[in-house]
């Protein structure tokens, strides 16, 4: 199985159905397929060894993704927001690749290999001679290289092979299952696994994608209505901005059947408000990692509805990532590798056909096929998976393992707090002590003592921060993951 097959099938079955809208331009499935084949031939005639994409969401993005697949070349989306210093080594590591860029200046790039992205949609961007596309692309070939910035340091190149991504798509999406009027609004960045998985799933289901170049709450809401969007996906930061922007008034998105979220932990207060404002919309929480070809667990609309209706068990499960997909196995193990019982927190391991667990430089999959996610979590008696956070972020205070997320959730529940970060700071007596950094909501005020009291009411004393500081904002990745190492450096600095 090769990624290009996904589009080829949709193009031959759905033909003139609209596939992608970006600004005023819409490409049908047949047009997208033709453009991807034309670009594939051109990439090969240029002698390219890969296809780098450096820019925002645009109709040229799917053309580049499927063009790379038709050519049998790896697709490598880079974070266009990175500074020159960080972008240049990534560009240089992919020397030989054609670079599809939003602007002509790409640090470290060979100018002859830079192609402005608007060119991809131009029929004159084609190979002169008769370049034949490879008749067979091995499912073992690398389809996509994603630099996972993670939250803890130097980017690593995660490798996803054709077989991983196609296993995810054909295992979870019904081919051409979408109604012709369905449309998905996409604002997640193209260099994130969610943006890629989203593209593949929607193209295979026959659902039109509407791209927004950048996120703005009002533009996003307007687009929901104007484009009659039926599916949308957001990261927590975006939903928080939408909720704040709506300021209590209903979202008025009558066509929106599903709103899915993921990419980082969703603060419960944001989710609860969103459930209230998006009447008639089903919410889906998707959990996955780059190394697992996106989603491996889902919390579906019924679970959200039950929680919203006040079911106490469902309310607890609103803090979970739901159940793992069919075909995915999960184990929770202790530090020594022993499999833990239901309800016991430990390290989360995953296994399944979509799980790659491979980087440029080696695989971290063990002999039995298990991938260590490095997330801590547990499973409840009905197989709901709860994720506490990254194992590296766990605070060990006096021998007790403390998940920062639990304390952050409590702080965020305070009226005056919009964001919170909890980290462990070195301490001679306890090993680590708990420190919190909070951001106060505009127009609100709160003192340190009040926050200590608030934490003590809601948490065991061993989990109450011993130090609380205020900042104007907290550092996040573009998908909303908190950069705890930067918070810690700031506190220690």
């Amino acid at each position: 199985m090769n990624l290009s097959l996904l589009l080829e099938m949709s193009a031959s079955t759905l033909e003139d159905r609209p596939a992608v809208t970006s600004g005023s331009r819409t490409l049908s499935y047949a047009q997208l397929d033709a453009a991807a084949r034309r670009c594939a031939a051109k990439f090969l005639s240029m002698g390219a060894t890969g296809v780098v994409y450096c820019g925002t969401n645009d109709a040229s993005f799917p053309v580049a993704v499927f063009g790379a697949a038709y050519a049998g070349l790896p697709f490598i989306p880079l974070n266009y927001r990175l500074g020159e210093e960080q972008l240049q080594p990534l560009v240089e590591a992919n020397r030989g690749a054609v670079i599809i860029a939003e602007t002509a200046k790409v640090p470290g790039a060979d100018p002859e290999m830079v192609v402005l992205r608007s060119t991809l949609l131009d029929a004159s961007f084609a190979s002169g001679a008769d370049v034949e596309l490879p008749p067979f692309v091995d499912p073992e070939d690398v389809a996509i290289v994603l630099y996972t910035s993670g939250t803890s340091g130097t980017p690593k190149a995660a490798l996803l092979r054709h077989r991983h991504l196609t296993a995810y798509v054909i295992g979870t999406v019904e081919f051409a299952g979408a109604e012709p009027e369905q449309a998905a609004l996409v604002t997640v960045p193209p260099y994130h696994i969610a943006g890629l998985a989203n593209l593949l799933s929607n193209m295979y289901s026959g659902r039109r994608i509407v791209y927004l170049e950048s996120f703005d709450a009002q533009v996003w809401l307007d687009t929901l209505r104007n484009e009659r969007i039926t599916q949308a996906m957001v990261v927590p930061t975006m939903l928080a901005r939408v909720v704040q922007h709506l300021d209590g008034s209903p979202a008025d998105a009558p066509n929106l059947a599903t709103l899915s979220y993921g990419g980082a932990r969703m603060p419960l207060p944001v989710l609860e408000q969103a459930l209230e404002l998006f009447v008639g919309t089903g919410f889906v929480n998707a959990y996955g990692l780059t190394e697992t070809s996106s989603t491996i667990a889902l919390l579906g609309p019924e679970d959200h509805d039950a929680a919203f209706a006040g079911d106490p068990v469902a309310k607890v499960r609103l803090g979970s990532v739901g159940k793992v997909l069919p075909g995915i196995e999960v184990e929770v193990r202790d530090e020594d590798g022993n499999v833990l019982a239901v309800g016991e927190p430990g390290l989360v391991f995953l296994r399944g056909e979509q799980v790659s667990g491979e980087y440029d430089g080696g695989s971290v999959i063990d002999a039995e096929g298990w991938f260590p996610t490095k997330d801590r979590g547990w499973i409840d008696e009905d197989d709901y998976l709860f994720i506490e956070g990254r194992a590296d972020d766990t605070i060990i205070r006096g021998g007790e393992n403390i998940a920062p997320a639990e304390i952050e959730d409590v702080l965020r529940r305070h009226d005056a707090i919009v964001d919170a970060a909890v980290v462990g700071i070195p301490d001679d007596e306890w090993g680590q002590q708990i420190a919190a950094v909070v951001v106060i909501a505009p127009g609100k005020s709160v003192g340190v003592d009040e926050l200590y009291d608030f934490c003590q009411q809601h948490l065991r004393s061993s989990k109450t921060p011993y130090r609380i500081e205020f900042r104007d904002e907290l550092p996040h990745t573009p998908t909303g993951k908190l950069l705890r190492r930067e918070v810690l450096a700031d506190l220690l600095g």
Partner: protein
Amino acid sequence: MDIKAGSRLACPECSVELVVVRPPSSAVVLTCGGVEVVDAAADRPGGGHADASGDGTLVGKRYADEDSGIEVLCAKPGPGTLAADGREVPIKGAKPLPSSD
């Protein structure tokens, strides 16, 4: 015929085209409408099946034969029905999931 993952197969007589999702673990003869499928790049005379009984083969459906382990995805539909060593190959049930992306 060498059937490996990713191979493209086709019916010589009808429009059915297949992609191998999982190769067989033991040798198997895969037929469409009673005729052995061929490499998709091979010569396909067409002409249709004399006997078009059965449900045909549906695009986007996965067909899996438990005995041999072979699993294929139908990339182009047609009237021919798949069989592995004469056994009809059933559609592999997919559980629809709520849209997550």
